[in-house]
């Protein structure tokens, strides 16, 4: 980061400190399963894989959790679902898809058998409840990433 000035701070005990911001820039091949899942998100479709016992996994399981068999049967699920569990984020991180306090939820999408984690845009913790219905809000500029779904929002506002 040539040209950036190092921000050195004098601590109370006489030591010096300077920030060190770590990041991990890498590109990896996603593999066929995750690649298909994330690509479908960019096309506003949510897809999962069907395990041998019939359960639909979203995000997709690459291998059957019980038998280890590669899973290749795909199922499109709904972009609406039910909140199974939730918790409140009072102070969002800068990397979150929402910049105001919001909820996290494990959401059982219609047609899926395993809930997936995502953010829920809610006015207050008091408006959240187990069993509430939520719907995906798609990001305007979608790349094949989980954040192609910007968040979920309560059905009916």
């Amino acid at each position, binding site marked *: 980061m040539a040209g950036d000035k190092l921000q050195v701070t004098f*601590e109370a*005990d006489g*030591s010096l*400190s300077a920030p*060190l911001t*770590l990041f991990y820039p890498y590109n990896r091949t*996603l593999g066929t399963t*995750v690649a298909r*899942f*994330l690509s479908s998100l960019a096309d506003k479709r949510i897809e999962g894989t069907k395990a041998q016992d019939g359960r639909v*996994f979203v*995000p997709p399981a690459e291998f059957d*959790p019980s038998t280890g068999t590669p899973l290749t049967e795909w199922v499109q699920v709904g972009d609406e679902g039910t909140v*199974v*569990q*939730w*918790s*409140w*984020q*009072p102070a969002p*991180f800068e*990397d*979150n*898809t929402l910049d105001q306090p919001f909820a*996290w*939820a*494990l959401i059982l999408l219609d047609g899926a058998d*395993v*809930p*997936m*984690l*995502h*953010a829920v845009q809610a006015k207050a*913790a008091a408006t*959240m409840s*187990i069993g509430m219905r939520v719907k995906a809000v798609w990001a305007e500029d979608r790349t094949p*990433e*989980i*954040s192609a779904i910007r968040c979920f929002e309560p059905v009916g506002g």
Partner: protein
Amino acid sequence: MRDVAIVAFSEGPVTFGSTSTPVEMIVPTVHDVLKQAGIERTDVDFWCHGSCDYMTGQPFSFVSAVDALGAWPPIIESHVEMDGAWALYEAWIKIQTGEAEVALVFGNGKSSAGDMNRALSLQQDPYTVAPLWPGMTAMEGLGACAALQAGTVTERQMAEAASRARRDGAKNGNVLVSGNESADELLSRPVTAAPFRDHDIPAMADGVSAVIIATGDVAKKIAKRPAWIRAIDHRIDHQNLGWRDLARSTSAAIAASEVGVHKDKVDVAELHTTFSHHEQLLINALQLRPDATSITPSGGALVGNTLMAAGLSRFGHAARSIFSGSADRAVAHAQQGACLQQNIVAVLEGN
């Protein structure tokens, strides 16, 4: 199997905002544990370290930690990218293979180097979860929500766990937070990160802990009353929170069953409770009877969560209850990952 015992334990100061390097933090604690055991560093056959490069901010940071041990004459050492409790497990295996008689195990971490709540998002799936940055507290909140909904943990039990941790922390002294509030007082405080109140969330801390384990006759020479590791086992649940039953800790229950926690009385159980609801989940999984067992008398990680060391500290404090004679049979537990994903359980006995 060879008889192996914990024979010494030292815990460095539990602080937040240390300006020391990892080596500077480790040296005094390693010296202290050797002093307690009355042995020299050259008596140690195997060194094993638990820490996290990501927290240190430097790849292979554990290599520089060897400076704290003294690398000449050459030593045999290893490292796990896990809490020190898992380093203890590796050292225990090393002794079982006959390659060592005495091992020094240590774990260290400096939570204050960054925002650990945010950073621990990176323990999750790198494509479908981590890029959303859910954070440790929010993920644990989902687990607590599941447990409260299923009735495996109650809000009162969470407050009681926090209340006891704060009282026991005051007695311990080497913790970040303490207090004398009753469970009722804690319950009257506001919910800040639903379902949590502030006291349900761990106080992140910087710290080091070190333990010496030794086999048979060597252990008897070092300690008046060694804490014999009768059984030790570790298990793991799936990483994906949606695939697991968060209302119970399946892997902790398997590990506890494997080591036979329930087969006899348990005088002391040092549980690695980082969030208040973990305590009841672990009591359920380990089938403990709180009326007959002293639960985490050290105060535990809720009042000073020295990431990468707090689990090993639980082993150390459980062993201390054997050293002092206050317990004949103790259980040590450590965990890692979101929502009790990985659990290690050991039974320690004085006789």
